[in-house]
């Protein structure tokens, strides 16, 4: 579904990604783990068109997307849940969801999408008239995920959904991701919290200093002695 071939990216002179290749198959959950500054967020920025790669190609459903604008990529079916959620705090929960369904196609299916989301996350239905800024940390992340689903994506990309949250709430956020996974969405999630994230992974990638160091199934990760020591703490 998503294929990345030899992507490099840089901020000015500073190279952040070095010839990364990875893929996400339809219905699969792929996780990219790695320390701070490994280029995880940059990778998602490049896929969503917020940053142009300096080298390499990206295909989505066979179509080349690395030269497309962000709003076009969203239309094709890739949506990003940015780090920290990036909600519109002065809009209500419902208005945030409405904005999520911005494209024409998404607006036509607005009611259907809304029902689906209120089914997945009933709390949002109770809070729909509340300002997004007044939600708790976990609910905000829930709304951010819900908002990204409003564009009717095939692939949902999550940027560090657990960052800045207390451990207890973190567990709830991973539970949200599990819920959308069970709905059949393809997922590409980048996370620092490798142990929790790997529980959800069908396939996982390890990024270090902008290079792809290792990839495999979740069990390969757990077996790898280096990863065990450096990232899983066992």
């Amino acid at each position: 579904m998503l294929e990345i071939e030899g992507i490099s990216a840089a901020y000015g002179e500073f190279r952040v990604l070095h010839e990364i290749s990875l893929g996400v198959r339809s219905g699969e959950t792929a996780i990219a783990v790695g320390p701070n500054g490994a280029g995880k967020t940059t990778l998602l920025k490049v896929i969503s068109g917020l940053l142009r790669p300096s080298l390499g190609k990206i295909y989505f459903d066979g179509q080349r997307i690395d030269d497309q604008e962000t709003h076009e990529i969203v239309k094709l079916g890739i949506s990003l849940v940015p780090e920290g959620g990036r909600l519109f705090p002065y809009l209500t929960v419902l208005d945030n969801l409405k904005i999520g369904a911005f494209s024409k196609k998404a607006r036509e299916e607005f009611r259907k999408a809304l029902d689906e989301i209120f089914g997945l996350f009933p709390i949002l239905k109770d809070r729909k008239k509340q300002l997004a800024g007044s939600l708790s940390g976990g609910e905000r992340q829930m709304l951010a995920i819900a908002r990204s689903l409003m564009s009717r994506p095939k692939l949902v990309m999550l940027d560090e959904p657990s960052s800045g949250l207390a451990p207890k709430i973190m567990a709830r956020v991973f539970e949200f991701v599990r819920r959308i996974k069970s709905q059949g969405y393809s997922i590409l999630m980048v996370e620092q919290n490798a142990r929790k994230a790997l529980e959800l992974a069908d396939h996982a990638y390890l990024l270090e200093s902008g290079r792809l160091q290792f990839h495999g199934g979740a069990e390969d990760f757990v077996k790898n002695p280096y990863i065990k020591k450096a990232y899983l703490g066992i």
Partner: protein
Amino acid sequence: MRSPLNIKRGPILLTVILGCLILFPVFSPSPYLIHIITLIFIWSYVSTAWSYMGRFGLVSLGHGAFLGTGAYITALLFNFFNLSPWIGMLIGASGAVFLAAVLGYACFRSGIIGDYFALVTLAVGELVALSIIAMREITGGSLGFTLRSLGNSPLYFQFGSKVYFYYISLLFLLFALYLWKRIDKSKMQKALKAIGEDEVAASSVGINIIRHKMAIFIISAFLTGIGGVLYAQYITYLNPHTLSGVTVSLAIPFKAILGGMFNIWGPAIGTAMIVSLEEYIRVSYGTKFVGVSEVVYGIALITLIIFLPKGLYGTVLEIFHKRQRSAETIT
């Protein structure tokens, strides 16, 4: 039913005010008052057009560029080629649109936002003023030039009486307010609001940022260009400093911000206050304080943005709503 600005009473209040404004010239033949109110209409129209984009965080400090482009193109076409300003204003405003399109595309493409956008526009406003001064042979340079007078000839946007300008500028102002409402109901408003709050979030939900910002910039520039024509036709004299320099470029946002750019009536209320105050100072102190207004603008603009970001009218409304809400909870 406590408030005079109650939603249901709103339209009635509006009709009364509008009726008074329409009947005013009939009952008050004072040409001076009509002159002042006409100026208020014209500048309210311009500062409303400015707020179209200002309220979404696109603060331009160079709207004089569009004012000047519109006014000069139209007036020169009339003076040299005898083209009626009614047609010329469309060409003049298109000139302003062209400028906005080039400037907007360059800024938005390269991610120039916020304060940096304000600075770039400030420079462009001054650039247009300097260009007008430099093209001395046709524009009259710093001295400006006077429109050829045709006496009373409505087809050429010249009238024997000020009253016509009064009604025409009122119409333009009403149109600008109507367009504000239309924008509020459109999808564009939602997109721009999202962009104003957080550009990354807006683009990640699929909003075409450049297109929406370009659209509102172009609409604002077009109306402002027409505003320049209105002013020039009324005063019948064009001067680069009153139509495109830093002074006017700052005066427009100042009026809007003073009244409150987030509310549809804010810019007009701010303009009415400033124009009246300027007139009062001019009449009572004469030309003793020439140049002081720029200093006052600068200081007041900074103070307002820091302490009253919603403007005077916006803040009054807010306090009023709070009172009302707390009164409701008590009863």
